[in-house]
């Protein structure tokens, strides 16, 4: 019997040429500090969630974006207020940039009554159209055509908005990735898809997911621009997304951006990622997006160590209040289980699982 040879198409996780140097940007200092704040906030919120998890306060699984903060934050920061985004479970940074409060996410993870879904759904699975947020479903890929529809509606309504969502390397194998991107391309809607290529889909390396090295290659199949960027360089992600967003807004149609990054934890908190070769962690540890950005800020005189420390301290103290608030929320009343299956009126989400 012939042997499978799915390992023979290159390195386990092909990397872009990543140096410590970050991409060029015109972003002023204040906005660069914003990026720093959001990345740091993301990591620290996840730190708090990790604590809550270890204290047994989190219901169900906990998902982390450790090491990938630049991808979520950089891409979301390229959006304008009227834009709409559909973050996945590893895009906490995106949600925070869009104005989601840490307490909201904490309450979601703890299944609390005051969580945005009132306890009906878990983790980052909540949305609010008034804040430009669409909740995905667990089935990977499914939100891609949905966001294409958001983009289409934006154009039809003359809203000048761009719709954006994400997909992992694993998620690119779904039928909806193909159908959604193809439909978006044919309809020429203002849509940006950010593919987070972090080398793994749960325990499955990219080499078993696809026979190509770069997800951006797939853009050509849809006649749209595709670009591979260093996903651990927040400026590179920002700049590439910004270009795609601007092109989309000008009527240039969808783009596919591949951000090469790395998942520094297991698939979820329960997973020790024993299947990931230790050297991959070592290599990528050196490319930590926050530390790299710190070096950039310091090295280019954009911030001092004290300023960065102050940002961290500020976040830290504000997170105390967030955790306290979230912990204080009760569990939802049982009757709520029976409410809100049907909408009585159409309308944009109230973010309350039909509870309100």
């Amino acid at each position, binding site marked *: 019997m012939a042997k499978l040879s799915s390992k023979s198409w290159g390195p386990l996780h092909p990397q872009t040429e990543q140096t410590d140097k970050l991409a060029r940007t015109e972003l002023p200092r204040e906005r660069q500090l914003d990026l720093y704040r959001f990345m740091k906030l993301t990591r620290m919120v996840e730190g708090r969630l990790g604590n809550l998890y270890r204290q047994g306060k989190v219901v169900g699984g906990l998902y982390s974006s450790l090491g990938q903060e630049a991808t979520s934050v950089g891409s979301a920061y390229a959006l304008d207020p009227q834009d709409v985004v559909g973050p996945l479970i590893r895009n906490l940074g995106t949600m925070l940039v869009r104005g989601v409060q840490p307490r909201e996410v904490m309450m979601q993870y703890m299944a609390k009554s005051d969580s945005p879904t009132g306890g009906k759904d878990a983790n980052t699975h909540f949305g609010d*159209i008034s804040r430009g947020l669409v909740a995905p479903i667990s089935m990977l890929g499914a939100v891609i055509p949905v966001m294409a529809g958001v983009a289409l509606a*934006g154009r039809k309504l003359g809203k000048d908005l761009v719709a954006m969502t994400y997909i992992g390397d694993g998620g690119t194998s779904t039928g909806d990735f193909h159908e959604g991107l193809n439909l978006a391309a044919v309809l020429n809607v203002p849509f940006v898809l950010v593919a987070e290529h972090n080398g793994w889909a749960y325990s499955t390396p990219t080499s078993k997911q696809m026979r190509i090295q770069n997800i951006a290659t797939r853009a050509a199949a849809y006649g749209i621009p595709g670009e591979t960027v260093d996903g651990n360089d927040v400026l590179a992600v920002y700049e590439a997304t910004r270009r795609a967003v601007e092109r989309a807004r000008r009527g240039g149609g969808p783009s596919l951006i591949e951000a090469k990054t790395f998942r520094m934890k297991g698939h979820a908190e329960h997973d020790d990622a024993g299947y990931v070769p230790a050297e991959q962690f070592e290599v990528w540890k050196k490319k930590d997006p926050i530390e790299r950005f710190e070096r950039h800020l310091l090295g280019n005189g954009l911030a001092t160590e004290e300023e960065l420390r102050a940002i961290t301290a500020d976040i830290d103290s504000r997170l105390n209040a967030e955790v306290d608030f979230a912990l204080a929320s009760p569990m939802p009343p049982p009757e709520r289980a029976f409410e809100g299956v049907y909408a009585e009126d159409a309308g944009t989400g109230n973010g309350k699982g039909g509870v309100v």
Partner: protein
Amino acid sequence: MAVVTYLEAIRQALWEEMEQDERVFMLGQDIGTYGGAFRVTSGFLERFGPERIIDTPISESAMVGCAIGASMMGLRPVVEMQFIDFIACSFNQMVNFAAPNHYRWGQSVPIVVRGPSGGNVHGSAFHSQNPEAFFHHAPGLKIVSPATPADARGLLKAAIRDPNPVLFCEHKYLYRRIKEELPAGDGLVPIGKARLAREGRHLSVITWGAMLHVALEAAGRLEADGIDLEVLDLRTIKPLDQEAILATVRKTSRVIVLTEEQLTGSVAGEVASRISEHAFPWLDGPVVRLCCPDTPVPFSPTLEEAYLPNVDKLVAKVRELASY
């Protein structure tokens, strides 16, 4: 007013809703220049333009997904499945995205997914399906299956105006075979309400779609036997009009659920089980189902005739139950 076909009634509903409400638009395969495989949208492209009549690639999952996204932004998309059988390719979007969305995070998903369903046209296994039973287990969906032109028009308008995702099953056997005058005005028909299609005293037949006409014909034939059938047309499959179902059973105490579905897992089973749970004291006999056998829809006319319920089969069942 002129009599119009079931198909024309559907066309009118779509046309009128598009005229009245800018938010309504359509996605489908070959619905533009071609006017749809069954010509339901003939003339729409000329009137409403390519931004509102969108020919899509062959991507049922993306079509429904795209509609979901657009509906969240306040639009009212209507998706045409070229044949409703192809909705299987968008099952995940229907059941896991559209249906539970409002419950999950409070965002309504006002979409309509419509298309030709049903057999008796020798379409074989993939152009004859009745999809209701695959979807009635999805909380958050509504399902509508009209049997008459007036209901087709009134329910389709109601579906488009409904804030929830609605699966709208048109029976293609009826498209050009059934005609009637339509009511003036909107003629809205509320979703969730069955219609007593025939009052009778002895035995109730609960049904919908093409089978309604079988039931009515059987009723005529059974008059000679002195059996007076009551016929309830469900019209809405989800949510079921349980009150109307129980009311007819309380009245006649004998009931046959007649549907063009394979027996197992049918909506007919759901109806029968509600009756046996909630109208038990009124029953004078078993709740009988007359459905199709548990096979794919066969192609050849001789086989499909054996497969489908018809007037003869119903009359026989009625006689049997009447003498229980």
